[in-house]
């Protein structure tokens, strides 16, 4: 086994285990804290893919900002009641069977992966030479300007929606 395989194997296995921990913990705060660990591992995988900028964003945005929001929301909930109940819904055996079947499909195509010649203009060498931050910066406001602007409208809609659904009613 090469060092790369060990690195990837560690992160992939850990992410699977941690994901199971996130959904199976009785205490929601524990779930959220495991999710924090999950996000850090995800950042590790991004590093493995030479995407150091994405790894940094993953830590800052997800592990930093979004996790705090999660904890805030959980503080507002009544935890006592949650803790007593079984965390999985009663249809979990069906879900489990579906998930296993899905795994079988994915594993069965694993052998069919053909390594194609390096595709696309953003090759690993090019990104290594330039750095992923610069590559993203170069295309974000030029080639990907339109998606970028659409995303801004999307965020606006999200804000409007949050306000509309949560504001105090004026009768």
């Amino acid at each position, binding site marked *: 086994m090469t060092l790369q395989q060990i690195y990837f194997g560690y992160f992939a296995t850990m992410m699977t285990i941690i994901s199971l921990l996130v959904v199976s913990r009785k205490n929601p705060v524990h779930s959220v804290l495991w999710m924090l660990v999950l996000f850090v591992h995800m950042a590790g995988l991004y590093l493995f893919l030479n995407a150091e900028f994405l790894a940094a964003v993953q830590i800052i945005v997800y592990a930093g900002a979004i996790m705090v929001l999660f904890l805030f929301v959980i503080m507002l909930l009544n935890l006592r009641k949650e803790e007593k109940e079984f965390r999985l819904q009663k249809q979990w055996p069906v879900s489990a069977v579906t998930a296993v079947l899905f795994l079988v*499909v*994915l594993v*069965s*195509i694993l052998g*069919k*992966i*053909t390594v*194609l010649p*390096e*595709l*696309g203009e953003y090759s690993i060498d090019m990104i290594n030479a*330039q750095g992923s931050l*610069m590559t993203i910066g*170069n*295309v974000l*406001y*030029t*080639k*990907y*300007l*339109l*998606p970028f602007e*659409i*995303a801004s*409208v*999307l965020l*606006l*809609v*999200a804000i*409007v*929606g949050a*306000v*509309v*659904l949560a504001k105090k*009613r004026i009768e």
Partner: protein
Amino acid sequence: MDLPITITLMDIRAIVPELTLICVGLIIMLLDLVVKKKDLVALAGIAGTVLALFGTYKLYGVTDTQFVFSNMFVLDGYANFFKVIFYINLILTICISIKYMEIEKSSFGEYYALLLFATSGMMIMASAADLIVLYLGLELMALSTYILTGLMRKQPRSNEAAIKYFFLGAFSSAFLLYGISLTYGMTGTTNIKEIAFAISTLGIADNPIMYLGLIFMIVAFSFKVALAPFHMWAPDVYEGAPTSITAFMSVGPKAAGFAVMGRILMGAFGDMQAQWVTVLIPLAVLTMATGSIIALSQTNIKRMLAYSSIAHAGYILLGIIAGTPEGLTASVNYLMIYTFMNIGAFAIVIMLRSKGFQGENLDDYKGLAKSHPVAAALMLIFMFSLAGIPPTAGFIGKFYVFMELIGSGYTPLAIIAIIFSAISAFFYLRIVVYMYMKDAEQEIVLTQSPTMNIALAVTSVMVLVLGIFPSFLLYFVRYSIMGY
């Protein structure tokens, strides 16, 4: 490395209709602060839509197919025709919602702004030439409709519908992204044209990973257009949402879903037609069966129309299965007709809602012909059209789809579709029987408003006119899709 910014005036021109809708949406939100009468806000929304329609009209046919924003966005007859469907859907929805939202005590300016944003999302989907743009347009549409679904905050069923729609929608987005990433991994691009090119040059049409990516995308789109077995959300969401939004969702997102389905399947995965047809045929049969059979046992008209819209999605899919430009023409033609008849039917449902009276049970339609002959006659037209009975437009829509299907050699499938169509006639005609042959159990007060009457007049006239003179619309569709 220095990259010049290469956005020209031509690029901006191409997205003027979308920009108009988004800007008017923003103006409406500001207007909402100063204008007390929400009717004016709604009228501003209609005015904005007409403005955007004018923009599309100016762009229509003036230019050939053109790609702008570094091949992210495409302007062609196909996209423009779908945009016209979205405009009609938006204007009719605003017309039928003004009075209704007041009765529901949920008349906010944001309601109209979100309708406009949702429509701009659909337009972006129809014009997407890149999977990233497609995904963002889809999310813009979906996020706005989730919020609109839950707008009646005090009604638990509205909240439930919004939550259900949101969770399942997020789940389907995950499938879409998984499909996109598998496709990107195999072809090295997210551009629809380049994917088609990569599939043919690399010879990976038989690759199971491409197949899996394709199936994941079909799953996501099936969710959006409510094809069985991905339709589970539809009855609950259609029932819980404000009725005007139900009308909006049963047409807009469905049309947008079919727009991208047509573009992705025929544009990007054209070489894999054999593969996607084998996936779509069982989906279509299952969808028509689910929609037609489960609708028989419904007692709530919104749920019944939800199953009816599921069945119609199955018929529309048949045109795509035919896999020819003519088949696509028939599907798009059907979508346009479906827009009028479905919104018309929902308009009548909305009219039955008055203060303190839901008017959603089938029993409420008993004896409607005696107390309100005009409304009953209009409902009769829409029900006949949905059932596909001549001389209404619904017949023409189904007729062309089945013709193209038989023309492409799928005769057994066409026969199955006709059988299910006959089954579905039962529950449409049951309403007609209730209205004309039963006695009223209670006094029904219809809620009327000028805009509602306009919407009803337009939809019923269009259903009849397109039923009697179908060639005009068909010519228009054919002309639009020609360049595609």
